[in-house]
């Protein structure tokens, strides 16, 4: 089975890694933003499911992956709106609402799916990809990394954009302050609620796009609970990135590639239980934490509602 790792297989593996990476990247990026602003989205997975469902409908009926992704973003924002109203505006507990949102989204999307597609199981035809000139000629990487739906590159660009935003724009500064010392931000005359609202909505949009990518491009169909815990992994990645969004790319790629490697090992006939392989990413992180025991940084006002004039 050693002759197995032919160019097409390697290409497929790398492509597969990207398929798994992209939704995670979007979700984790969104979560980083809202965590920076002090809002913990335990319901991230729910936002992804909303996005996946809305996006799938869009792409299916309007026959445009872009419209689909756009609707996915709206779907995610719709879910995020629940967080905004209950947690940011009404200052209710973020964990309760987050879990509620997750369960609610799981329920609603499967419900709708059953009612809408229960007997037809429609699938979306192959969505067109773009080839990055020249680069797409590179063996293996060319056909995989540089032959993707544009949204992939948009996503990576978005990470850089957010990175730049956090350091160079007022919005970014406000974001960081809102998660660290909202009272200071408030004293400086910036509306904390508004800042957090925008952050959570952005998170919803990104998570939604991630979900839509999953249903439209990665799977080509919507199946209930298809996010398979990606949202929760997104939360972990966002925290591991410690607010340094660039890490999100690396970490989510690591995750994607580990899945592809597990496939490769199986194809090579290596006899490891998939359970073991599934554990590897998490075990690695735990090991890293144990060895280098770095105090994982979190915004000090994370998951705390802000009340003006409180000591």
């Amino acid at each position, binding site marked *: 089975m050693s002759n197995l790792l032919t160019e097409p297989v390697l290409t497929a593996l790398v492509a597969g890694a990207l398929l798994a990476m992209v939704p995670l990247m979007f979700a984790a990026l969104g979560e980083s933003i809202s965590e920076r602003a002090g809002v*913990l989205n*335990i319901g991230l997975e729910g936002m992804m499911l909303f996005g996946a469902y809305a996006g799938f409908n869009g792409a299916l009926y309007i026959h445009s992956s872009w419209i689909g992704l756009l609707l996915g973003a709206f779907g995610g924002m719709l879910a995020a709106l*629940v967080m905004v109203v*209950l947690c940011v505006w*009404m*200052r*209710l*507990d973020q*964990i*309760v*609402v987050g*879990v*509620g*949102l*997750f*369960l*609610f*989204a*799981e*329920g*609603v999307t*499967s*419900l709708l799916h*059953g*009612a809408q597609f229960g007997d037809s199981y429609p699938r979306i035809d192959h969505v067109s990809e773009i080839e990055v000139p020249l680069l797409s000629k590179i063996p293996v990487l060319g056909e995989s990394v540089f032959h993707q739906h544009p949204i992939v590159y948009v996503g990576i660009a978005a990470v850089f954009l957010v990175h730049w935003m956090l350091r160079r724009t007022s919005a970014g500064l406000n974001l960081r302050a809102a998660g660290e010392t909202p009272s200071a931000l408030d004293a400086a005359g910036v509306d904390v609620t508004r800042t957090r609202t925008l952050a959570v909505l952005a998170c919803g949009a990104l998570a939604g796009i991630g979900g839509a990518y999953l249903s439209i491009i990665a799977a080509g169909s919507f199946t*209930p609970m298809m996010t398979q*815990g990606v949202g*929760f*992994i997104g*939360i*972990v990645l966002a*925290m*591991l990135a410690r607010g340094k969004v660039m890490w999100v790319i690396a970490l989510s790629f690591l995750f994607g590639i580990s899945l592809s490697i597990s496939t490769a090992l199986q194809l090579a006939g290596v006899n490891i*239980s998939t*359970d*073991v392989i*599934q*554990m590897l990413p*998490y*075990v690695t*992180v*735990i090991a890293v*934490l*144990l060895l280098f*025991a*770095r*105090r*994982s940084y*979190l915004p000090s006002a994370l998951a705390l509602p802000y009340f003006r004039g409180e000591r």
Partner: protein
Amino acid sequence: MSNVVTEPPVVAPVEAPPAPRRPLTRLEPVVQAIVPVLLSILASGVLLAILGRDPFAFYGNILHNGLLTDFGVQQSIVRMATLLLLAGGLIVAFRANLWNIGGDGQWLLAAAFVAGIAPSVVGGLGMAVGLPLMIVIGAVVGAAWTIVPAVLKAYYGVNEIITTLMMNFVGIALANILVKGPFLTDKPGVPRTEILPLDQRLPMLGGSQIHAGIIVAVAMMLVIHVVMTRTPLGLRLRVLGSNHRAAVHLGLRPQRLTLIAFAASGALIGMSGAVSMLGDWGSFRADFNPAYGLLMVPVVFLARMNALATIAFVALFAVIQIGGDTATRLADLPTAFILVLVGLLLFFMTITEFHRVRRQRRLAVASRAPRSAGAEEVR
């Protein structure tokens, strides 16, 4: 003026009525429980109507099958045993502001372990010794699974949401490895552990279908309540929870406390897993994961980490879970609809919580009149 010196001004404020919450606090639990339920029934009722189902029939069926039939109420109580212990475990951690989000991993691992060895242990030692021993073992496994997050938190301040979530995923996978490996029966079918014979499970209470687990659970909840509200340990955990630096300053040994809280949390969750296996399931199936832990997180919060209030909340969710399946089936809906119901319920519960807080604030401000009079007399 002179009276100021003779009679210290402090007297006036002390006499001033502290924010008068008394009447409210009595009514509160009732309101807290009823209102959100009604609201979510209303909301999902509308949803049902839209889906062309009869809401009244639906809720009737939930009540009937979850509470009103002997059978239903017994099943609900059985489910409560599992959920209560789990919730108790979360209370202990949350009180100390330790976000043990990995409850499911701890629960499944303990369950798999217990289910794996129970048949031989209980068979060998007999129920009198075997069953209690198995519950203890479940507790130990659950506690063991919190060691890594606990140590990382206590000695390096590594955020426990990350670590418990991680250990959660690992725990789930490990549970599967156990049932597909060392604990696997040689029987065909879905990989699972050997079945613990019915007559070797937790004893049923007086001819009913309710097993002794509920007694363990309620007892533990009472213990938790007393410990948290009356004992030094409880107070220390609360202090650690609300201000870590203060805990250091006051000499509460934060590191040790962190370890204790995590261990206790994991142990209770492990007990829950054990009770569930020894009581109702009798065997652990590969990829089994009812995700009770996740559901209990918000429930515990809404009960404001009060053990007694938690019992009431858990009862509600148990009835919904038990009655819900039949109700959805009869209404020809997927069981997923229950998730919608639960989600709505959680939303509305938090909202009523919000109004409670608002009401208290308003009342508090209203209480200025008498104090003002006090101010007069000082001048």
